């Protein structure tokens, strides 16, 4: 039970890789979106807000299908990226990461935005009177204060990525070693006769992984919150 087969290890490592990169790549966009939604007023703001939140309510298969249309080999964005930057999403693990990033984005944006809303603007004004330019204020005051929110969002989005199924399988299919993350591997095992035991092993692995991620981030968030609240560490 404790030792994993090479195929299981492969699915596990791929899941972690996809989840890591989906969070890492979506983080800057999420912070920028959260900042726009929290601090700026512009026409179309509520539309942007709705679009960011769409993956939360749409069937994942719809998201996957649109990703396929846009980022597939012949899709307008996919073709452009492949030709000029050499980045391919179709049927590759990067596509799985993209699908997870889009599905996890609303969770990340929400968490960051909520903590941005809670930041005392007076502290930012105080930093400005001390000579900090807006960019410095963001880097040295705002960012440290919203760190707990960022960590929470990263955790949620990471967990979402570990569990992502519908958008991934629609967009990049179920290719072992390339796009077959843990949920996809579990699904594959349930589709073959006698795969039940295998599927169960992977299910338990999934549970352990998610529990571990939750507990680790809870600890990080607690530490960051205490720091942002100004208590001695």
């Amino acid at each position, binding site marked *: 039970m404790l030792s994993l087969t090479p195929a299981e290890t492969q699915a596990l490592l791929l899941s972690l890789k996809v989840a890591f990169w989906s969070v890492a790549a979506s983080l800057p966009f999420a912070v920028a979106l959260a900042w726009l939604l929290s601090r700026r007023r512009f026409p179309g703001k509520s539309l942007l807000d709705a679009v960011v939140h769409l993956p939360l309510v749409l069937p994942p298969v719809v998201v996957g299908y649109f990703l396929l249309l846009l980022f597939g080999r012949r899709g307008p964005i996919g073709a452009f990226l492949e030709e000029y930057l050499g980045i391919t999403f179709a049927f590759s693990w990067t596509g799985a990461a993209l699908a997870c990033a889009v599905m996890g984005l609303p969770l990340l944006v929400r968490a960051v935005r909520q903590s941005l809303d809670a930041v005392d603007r007076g*502290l930012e004004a105080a930093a*400005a009177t*001390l000579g900090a330019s807006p960019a*410095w204020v963001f880097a040295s005051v705002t960012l440290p*204060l919203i760190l707990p929110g960022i960590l929470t969002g990263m955790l949620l989005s990471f967990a979402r990525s570990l569990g992502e199924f519908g958008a991934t399988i629609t967009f990049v299919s179920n290719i072992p070693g390339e796009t077959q993350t843990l949920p996809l591997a579990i699904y594959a095992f349930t589709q073959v006769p006698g795969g039940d035991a295998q599927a169960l092993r992977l299910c338990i692995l999934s549970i352990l992984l998610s529990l571990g991620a939750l507990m680790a981030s809870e600890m990080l968030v607690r530490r960051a919150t205490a720091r942002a609240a*100004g208590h*001695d560490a």
Partner: protein
Amino acid sequence: MLDFKARFHAGRFELDCAFTTDPGVTALFGRSGAGKSTVLGLIAGLVRPAEGRIVVDGRVLYDSKAAIDVPAHRRRVGYVFQDSRLLPHLTVRQNLLYGRFFSRPRNGYSRLSLESIVELLGVGHLLERRPGSLSGGERQRVAIGRALLSQPALLLLDEPLASLDAPRKAEILYYIERLRDEVKIPIVYVSHSIEEVVRLADTVVLLSEGRVVESGPLAQMASRMELRGYLGRFEGGAVIEAHVAEQDLASGLARLDFAGGSLYAPDVDALVGERVRVRIRARDVSLATERPHAISMLNVIPGTVAEVGDAVGASVDVRVDSAGTSLLARITRKSVADLGLAPGRPVFALVKAVAIDRHSVGYA
């Protein structure tokens, strides 16, 4: 020093102010809602005026006609907020050095060192702590130090004592006095407490409902009777500049000499020869037309009635001139009539020594 002229409105509140200040401490005085904090926000660049012109030390920070609007972070205006606003995620040391990181040494100004500020404000033992564990008074001291270390051309203090209890107030007042006398940075001090204003200010700008009612040197403003309504019912009084002539340890009294004579006051925290400022509340002064005998009041100051104010209820403020120094006495209308007080009449102003407590005396 500061040349301020601005119009601003937000909702129903309208502000239309113009005043200039000399170096030293300028008090913006008025009731809450008078627009004091808004004026500071306009100077610091945190609030944008509808129109106006703000000049600090010859440097134009805002001019609507010339389309100049220096952003807050380039104004070099230190701001100490009522609620400190220390950065919670940084230690006290990091907070103190925060502004210094962005400031460049200026010609003709020696850079204040962290050590000198730490010593001046007595925050050495707090350096490694975080703001969350500091008391209100400690926070304000750190906030003042942080603003000073950003090398400001002007320091704004927005009711820095408002959230503190009495002992902490006295503590911070002491540090602000040291600041005024040792760092010699021009200060704009917002307050609605006449005690603080009297102890600290050289110039007073009296605000009411977004307008400047009057501005001028402290002693002159304090005895102006027509301003009584703005100063509050029990706050009227005169300010006398004196020097300590004698400290009698046996009786615990100090003799303070001024142009019009001498005053005895208990517990004066100053050395012989030092200049002090004494505030004498109008309600603590009685008047007599003859020098009284066999009386416990130690302070009997000869003078002449200069002005009899308008009656407010049963009481009247009478201004007495004593060799050029003004004293205010709040007495009843009945006494004015009985004694036949009118301008030109010689009188004696009587002040109980114990009415002059340590909150009434500050360094000049």
